[in-house]
């Protein structure tokens, strides 16, 4: 029998497509809509300790092949997020709570709450390229990453995933730190640091001046990172970056991903993208006589 089901660090997904963090993930009802649209898993918007407004607009630049965003991690804070989780859980699709903080203690507090709220796993945002003091600013230091991951691991029983940035030459070292600290999976990649300038107004467009590039523009970067990580660590890898068709998912899986996340495509192609991808995967499996997607994970490394 052909199945799209995958096991990701012990989490059962009905298919390998997961909603990426930051896209429609701030409210319970919008997460429900994405589950209805066919996603196999849902990652929440990255949540911090306190409510945060994020940056003023412009927070998004649209490009022919992607977006540059500098939202500035807006969110209601962990306390208020309890009611959103309650609603999101009605989807019966695993909810992965994304978290951001600057120090291990705060990550631990957040992760404990997410576990209490019923999250199937937590994803540590060690990679946002545009929030001062958070994300990438801690995520490019293997020592900082090791202490964050090990302290969260010590505090919760659910799987702990680390989301990494491609904006460093130390990607592999950081991933090894996650593995050494007992992390359960690696999510790669977050957005690529970028900017856009208005030549008429002669100034950067984004309020924050720089932001993170996503969408098809970064697929080659994400794919390369997943390929390198597959050779360096034994942890399951979740591939993210520019995925909008089943062919993109297959490429990521052949590079070594066990599952994938889809972000920008929700804006570029609409929520129907999840079903389009899973239908495409089914036809590929049919045409190539594949029963289980596990058979293709990492196959590109044989050459």
């Amino acid at each position, binding site marked *: 029998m052909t199945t799209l089901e995958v096991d990701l660090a012990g989490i059962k997904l009905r298919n390998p497509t997961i909603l990426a963090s*930051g*896209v*429609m*993930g*701030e*409210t*319970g*009802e*919008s*997460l*429900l*809509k994405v589950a209805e649209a066919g996603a196999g898993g849902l990652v929440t*918007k990255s949540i911090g300790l306190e*409510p*945060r*407004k*994020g940056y*003023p*607009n*412009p*927070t*998004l*630049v*649209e*490009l*022919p092949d992607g*977006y540059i*965003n500098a*939202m500035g991690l*807006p*969110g*209601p*804070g962990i306390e*208020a997020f309890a009611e959103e989780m309650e609603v999101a859980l009605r989807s019966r699709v695993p909810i992965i709570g994304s978290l951001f903080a600057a120090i291990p203690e705060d990550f631990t507090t957040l992760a404990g709450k997410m576990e209490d709220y019923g999250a199937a796993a937590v994803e540590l945002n060690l990679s946002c390229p545009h929030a001062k003091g958070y994300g990438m600013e801690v995520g490019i230091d293997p020592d900082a990453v090791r202490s964050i991951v090990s302290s969260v691991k010590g505090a919760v029983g659910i799987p702990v995933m680390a989301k990494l940035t491609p904006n460093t030459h130390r990607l592999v070292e950081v991933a090894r730190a996650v593995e050494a600290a007992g992390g359960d999976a690696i999510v790669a990649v977050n957005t690529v640091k970028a900017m*856009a300038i*208005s*030549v*008429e*107004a002669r*100034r950067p*467009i984004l309020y924050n001046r720089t932001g993170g590039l996503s969408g098809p523009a970064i697929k080659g970067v994400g794919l390369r990172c997943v390929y390198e990580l597959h050779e360096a660590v034994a942890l399951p890898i979740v591939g993210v970056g520019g995925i909008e068709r089943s062919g993109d998912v297959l490429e990521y899986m052949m590079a070594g991903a066990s599952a994938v996340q889809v*972000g*920008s495509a*929700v*804006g570029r192609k*609409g929520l129907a993208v999840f079903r389009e991808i899973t239908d495409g995967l089914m036809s590929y499996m049919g045409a190539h006589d594949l029963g289980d997607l596990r058979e293709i994970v990492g196959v590109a490394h044989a050459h």
Partner: protein
Amino acid sequence: MLIETRVRERIEAGKGITTLVFDAPMEARPGQFVMVWVPGVDEVPMSLSHIGPHAGITVKEVGEATKALSCLRPGDVIGIRGPYGNGWRLSGGRILCVGGGVGMAPIITAVEAAGDPGRVAVAIGARNHGEIIFEERARSVSNDVRITTDDGSYGLKGTVVSLADTMMKEKRYDLVLGCGPEVMNKFLLKACKDNEVPCQLSLERLMKCGAGLCGSCVIDGLRVCADGPVFTGEQVERMAEFGKCKRDDAGLRVKL
């Protein structure tokens, strides 16, 4: 995609209400909106009040960004991206268009698109005479245009919803289109139900990305920017948050 353009023309449409026409064509369906960037100030959603070779918006001054927009002069640089959203779905038969205040901006494009002065009627409401906009434009494409003001300074005294209710009782309509403050939309929805006329309402929520990504504009899980801003009466009736609360910049629920 951001279109960097300049203001071509600035027209005072009403008291504190300004129309800006851009040096840029825009193909759009009536009811769609654009994100408008005023460099150095902000980027905000605005319905297109003019579609075609010279796109345009009509802005009511309520805060910093809308004040900056109102102060722009021909030649000033702005950025626009879009059009976004779904727009009105015009059906055959008779249509009643109801615009409250600056809600007339997307409504007028629907009145013009209806294409037959005999089948489209317009109810325009505002707080006072100065805030009535697009009356002449409406009269040139509709044989039945009626006005209300809250203070009675022009047209009938009263709310535009009670006028719309009267019009629905006078004549049979096949569709009602509405855009205005959420309380207006709420009572209009009720009037349409009472008169058993299907309706479409254009809603407003806080927008950041405008492109269906960030989720800041959601009402009951639907994105106003991508799934709306125009929703059917049935969709709106199912929204528990409609008429009650919205989300602030941090995504926290606040009472309307």
